[in-house]
């Protein structure tokens, strides 16, 4: 949900992106209107519109005149690419920092990742969904 860590329009954009990545919003499916977003999250409609427009600018959403906003073809792929790039900064860095604080060596960390990845693949946990 909405918090104070960054501008709300960015959070709205990220929420929609996450839904596209996880498949909740399939490509070519309609996205809720900005007013619906505003009412649902109890935020200013102009702010919601700014979040949605950001995704339009990035080519992830497109407008159909008089109908609404839709997920663009290839949006999921585009987002996955971007998120791969962010993965190192967002997850690996803090992971290694915390590991060294706890005295976990690189080899030990790799083993832990392997074990964890193994159970995750067997379970249904999604690696991507945050």
């Amino acid at each position, binding site marked *: 949900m909405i918090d104070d860590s960054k501008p*709300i329009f960015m959070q709205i954009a990220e929420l929609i992106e996450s839904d596209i990545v996880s498949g909740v919003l399939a490509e070519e499916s309609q996205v809720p209107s900005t007013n619906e977003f505003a009412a649902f999250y109890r935020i*200013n409609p102009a702010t919601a519109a700014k979040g949605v427009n950001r995704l339009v600018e990035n080519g992830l959403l497109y407008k159909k005149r008089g109908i609404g906003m839709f997920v663009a073809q290839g949006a999921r792929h585009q987002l996955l690419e971007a998120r791969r790039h962010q993965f190192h900064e967002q997850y690996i860095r803090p992971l290694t920092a915390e590991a060294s604080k706890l005295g976990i060596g690189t080899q030990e960390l790799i083993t832990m990742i392997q074990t964890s990845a193994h159970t995750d693949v067997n379970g249904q946990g999604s690696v991507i969904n945050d």
Partner: protein
Amino acid sequence: MTNAPAIQATNLSKNYKELTALDQVNLALEPNRIYGLLGRNGAGKTTLMSILTGQGFANQGTVKIFGHNPYEHDATLSRMCFIRESQKYPDDFRANQAFKAAALFYENWDEDLARELIEAFRLPVKRRIKKLSRGQLSAVGVIIGLASRAEITFFDEPYLGLDAVARQIFYDRLVEDFATHPRTIVLSSHLIDEVANLLEHVVVIDAGKIVIDEEAESLRGAAVTVTGNAEKVAEFIGSYPVLHRDALGSLASISIRTRLSQAERARAAELGLELSPVSLQQLVVRSAMGTEDNDTSDVNVEAMK
């Protein structure tokens, strides 16, 4: 419509005997946005709004509403709605009679919306207004404010006495109705957390002076609290402007006014520092009170909750 400001105040000052209620206030509010007019009780919010609506008088300065001085100008006045927090109603009026009067004067009055709101707030419309509870009295003001659909609508601490459910009804209806009928809304409040997400622009007034006049989005995430080892915190924050300091033994918690880059966040993680967002309310309180006297600012945080 042009992009001329809906409300323009220039050098407004107002004194009550020895008290300075407004001190050289300059404001320009654009049409069709939701503004938050935030500040402590007695900061000058109501005084400012009554001058903007031609109900009160400034000792100095000018007000232009859509380019006109609203004082005694019916054509301009009729585009505004300002129900004050302590609004007086005719003694013998019942709530539905007040709505009937509002329907007379506000050309965009929406009777269906008024009816819906009456039901949502469970307002006893046939009871005399002077016998209503504080919350029901607030509801009367909220209903007139929303249903009038005036081009500029002021809400003066509209939630007083309303319970959590009723307050949520108000916020929800405001967002909903604003989405379909955009207009300029000025929401005066000292409960900042509750309204923060509804605001597009924030004006903070303290002791009659405007201390913040900024886009809400640029304030969000514009400050961060760094917590951890005092030395490392000091090293990390460098020369960023400090909003607030707390210390507990070797532990320090310092709020700084800056937007951290990805690299800085990474560095904080390496230093073992914890980062937490500063809410709009905290940011407003900290900014309004300055960093000089931390003791009083803590008291003020309580006062504003």
